[in-house]
């Protein structure tokens, strides 16, 4: 894995997603010039801080690395607060401080692998699908609330089968949870791997099934972060007695440096 680096990158463009009903979209792909780091693992993240944050927004914002090619780095985001609102106003040529790649990526195995994505949790899986050399071993279950065209699904449709379930009515969530459990059990029987990224309640459900069905499962967490490098101790989650580092068992561990990807039995989400 390459050493992380901090660099000032130029915005190539900002592409809105899912602009269909005349309303302003909240989903964007921010294309940045390629940073100096080349080696990265899907599931790792980066801190992004446009110079337009000035002094009034002190923190960078953490984003899972969506995709990187020889030409560019893609940061896919949804507008949820002050920071992403200001990011939605970025234009070609603007400057953005980016530090990464940060944290630990997902496991990559030559085994059946089920990708469980909830909403924006799909982002790190875009890179995962592109970087995996056995895409035929990958399947994805994607639960989402906004229309499908809000998410960057098209770029992976050619490589894997994405089963998407939109939550729009009562009962949809139950359906998602039902198929989630069935799929996890299937993969477990094949000694496969489950990877999940999404909102906390979604991850809690996946974790519960993982422990119950004894399926090898990794969860990617998100949290508010000030630094992304392990210093501010703001993004901690509680580890369990199964945590591999003895001194850090049953202890608050930084999501940024010890995660964001954790094995399901090694952290508590309560």
């Amino acid at each position, binding site marked *: 894995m390459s*050493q*992380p*680096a*901090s660099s000032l990158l130029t915005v190539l463009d900002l592409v809105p997603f899912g602009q269909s009903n005349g309303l302003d979209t909240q989903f964007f792909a921010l294309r940045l010039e390629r940073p100096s780091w080349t080696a990265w693992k899907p599931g790792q993240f980066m801190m992004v*801080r446009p110079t337009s944050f000035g*002094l*009034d*927004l*002190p*923190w*960078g914002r953490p984003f899972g690395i969506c995709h990187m090619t020889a030409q560019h780095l893609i940061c896919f985001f949804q507008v949820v607060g002050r920071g992403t609102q200001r990011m939605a106003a970025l234009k070609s040529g603007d400057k953005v*401080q980016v*530090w990464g790649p940060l944290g630990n990526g997902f496991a990559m195995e030559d085994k059946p692998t089920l990708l469980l994505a909830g909403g924006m949790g799909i982002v790190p899986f875009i890179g995962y699908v592109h970087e995996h050399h056995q895409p035929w071993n990958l399947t994805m279950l994607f639960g989402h609330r906004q229309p499908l065209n809000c998410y960057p699904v098209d770029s992976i449709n050619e490589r894997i089968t994405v089963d998407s379930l939109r939550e729009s009515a009562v009962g949809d969530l139950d359906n998602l949870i039902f198929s989630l459990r069935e799929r996890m059990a299937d993969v477990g029987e094949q000694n496969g791997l489950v990877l999940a990224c999404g909102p906390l309640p979604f991850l809690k459900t996946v974790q519960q099934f993982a422990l119950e069905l004894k399926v090898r499962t990794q969860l990617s967490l998100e*949290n*508010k972060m*000030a*630094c*992304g*490098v*392990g*210093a*501010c*101790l*703001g993004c*901690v*989650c509680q580890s369990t007695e199964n945590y591999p580092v003895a*001194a850090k068992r049953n*202890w*608050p561990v930084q999501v940024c*440096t010890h995660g964001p990807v954790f094995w399901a039995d090694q952290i508590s989400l309560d």
Partner: protein
Amino acid sequence: MDLSVTLAGERPLHLKNPVITASGTFGYGVEFAPYGDLTSLGAIVVKGLSLKPRSGNPTPRIAETTSGMLNAVGLQNDGVENFVRHTLPRLPWQELPVIANIYATEPQDFAELGAILAAEEGIAALEVNISCPNVKQGGILFGQDPRLAAAVTKAVRKAAPNKHLMVKLSPNVTDIAAIARAVADAGADSLACINTLSGMAVDVRSRRPRLANVIGGLSGPAIKPVALRCVWQVCNAVSIPVVGLGGIASAEDALEFILVGASAVQVGTANFFRPDFAFDLVRELPKACEKLGVHSLEELRGSLRV
């Protein structure tokens, strides 16, 4: 340009430049090694150490505010023994003064921490965090009472007679000059000024505080005017060197602290703006001086025209 600074006194602390990273914002230093040469810094102050490991406060522990941030981390740390055994050997202490920030809730524990660190060759100085409650005396903060602040200073002074002793003052007091004088008289070699300002943030939708601890410490550019005022008052009250901190986000900001009398500065929250901030500040300082037409920091230090 020669940027070197000596925090002069009985136990002088020599710095190759006045840029020190503030406690709690730079981890144990090793976290920032990928982003710059640690040995190019003036010194680093490591994350606060307590006698026993502390798991800290529940989350959320941090909140972004306009031009600043609140934290109530609760001094999560691995304890002084783990630091000395596992982390200190990984730091380039032969080429960079490593300052240990210490935290306790009783003067006796402060003394014990001082004694443990006094035996460590790799520790150049101790920074005493007196912005913490005195458990034995109903939780009043050491840093808010001149007698308690002096008692802690004396306890550490006695336990670590060989180490430069810096005491970090709290701005949450009525008369910071009185605390500064008490601490200086009790044997401090220098003062760091200021710690965070007590503050709160509220989420109007959930009607909940944005920190689990409700109250936290405010840092960042928002507090710079308060910090400058405190450093100015303290510099006028004592003759020992003062290290200024609070919201420094540029080389010019650092020079403002030097102008009001600080010998050196610490950078804290700006290390979160980007992880290479402190390294850049070292490079930017000479340029900022040149712009002002000054050839040394000495020309600026304490030269505020009032």
